């Protein structure tokens, strides 16, 4: 792939998905788009770029954008949502559900599994406190292909180094050649299912915590509003919804409201006469680790 081809792809992806690739992401383009070349009968990335320039093949265009965007994820991505889980959401949910000792967590765009497995690691680290609890992680994605990869839990050396502390790499993964596989016990903690958020998901039931990060950005406002309203319906009364840093509920739905302190965290609006949820840990204490 020449510099010009790479620049063309960067501009192409920026225009169609908002994805901003830095010059160092060349390896990512190569690793993600090589399978797309094969699928559409292009001998090289160079040929693929040539084909994109002249063709009106929308399936190929979509495949290029999907390959570069929908699966962009890493362990403990953005960190704060996971610090929040460990320090605020988990203790709070455990206090609220102390009677039933049952927690349900949903990763609504789980991609290749890094997000649900990050949560599984935090739950495993808190295993002593959670003895006797039934904790369920449901992870869904639109693409059956990425779900298969997630189930397998096999990651490249690049993938396991972005966000995952090396101590946890040694503790929870097994090295297989140049790759690393997450342990069977953590894999068994996550229940993967194929779900398109545009369709109904009521059948999944209600959840104490929902992670739906960096997926709404790809939809238009009415679709965002529709999904947010239905996520609100799937959220337990004291439940917490986490969105991506570039996402919000404001102006889209009044069935969810931002948490007064924690960025990226949303819940049911506090009803008149009902006490505010006890999510009052100062952000500073959460962020420092």
């Amino acid at each position, binding site marked *: 792939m020449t510099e010009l081809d790479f620049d063309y792809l960067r501009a192409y992806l920026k225009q169609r998905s908002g994805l901003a690739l*830095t010059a*160092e992401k060349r*390896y990512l383009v190569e690793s993600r788009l090589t399978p797309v070349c094969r699928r559409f009968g292009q001998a090289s990335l160079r040929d693929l770029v040539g084909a994109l320039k002249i063709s009106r093949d929308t399936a190929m265009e979509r495949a290029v954008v999907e390959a570069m965007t929908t699966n962009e994820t*890493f362990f403990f991505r*953005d*960190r*704060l949502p996971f610090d929040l889980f460990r320090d605020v959401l988990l203790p709070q949910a455990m206090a609220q559900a102390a009677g039933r000792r049952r927690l349900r967590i949903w990763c609504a765009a789980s991609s290749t599994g890094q997000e649900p497995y990050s949560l599984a690691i935090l739950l495993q680290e808190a295993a002593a406190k959670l003895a006797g609890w039934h904790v369920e992680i449901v992870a869904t994605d639109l693409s059956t292909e990425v779900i298969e990869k997630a189930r397998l839990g096999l990651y490249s*050396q*690049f993938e396991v*180094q*972005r*966000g995952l*502390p*090396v*101590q946890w*790499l*040694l503790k929870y993964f097994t*090295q297989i050649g*140049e790759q690393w596989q997450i342990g069977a016990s953590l894999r068994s903690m996550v229940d993967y299912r194929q779900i398109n958020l545009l369709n109904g998901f009521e059948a999944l039931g209600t959840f104490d915590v929902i992670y739906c990060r960096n997926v709404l950005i790809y939809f238009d406002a009415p679709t965002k509003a529709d999904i947010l309203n239905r996520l609100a319906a799937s959220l337990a009364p004291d439940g917490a919804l986490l969105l991506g840093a570039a996402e919000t509920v404001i102006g889209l739905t009044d069935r969810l409201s931002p948490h007064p302190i924690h960025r990226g965290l949303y819940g049911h609006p506090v009803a008149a006469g009902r006490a505010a949820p006890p999510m009052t840990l100062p952000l500073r204490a959460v962020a420092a*680790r």
Partner: protein
Amino acid sequence: MTLPTEKTCLVVDDSAVIRKVARRIIETLGFTVSEAEDGNEALKVCAAAMPEVILLDWTMPNMDGYAFLQALRQAPGGTAPKILFCTTENDVGAIARALRAGADEYIMKPFDRDILTAKLEQVGVVHADAA
């Protein structure tokens, strides 16, 4: 102008290319970067002024990264720096050995900006917003 609060990082690698690539990334994260091409030279730099972070190759002539780490951790003030191994050694045994000897994090080459930044965040010398 160098601010008195500026963070310091020592890059130890026998490859000038790796040192240059690492320096470029680390400088954009607000560090003043110094370089050494083996463990002996790195010990001298540390004796003059202990850096906050050390990015450390394993295989080098004269004194390798592992021997340097052991020597540094015994030296006065040598427990303070955060040490990130950065090496092509990528098997579980090597990683475990490095951590036992007192390394704080471990980077398997090849690395990029994302990995280096993430690992510096991991050891608490860079905050997510800086990236």
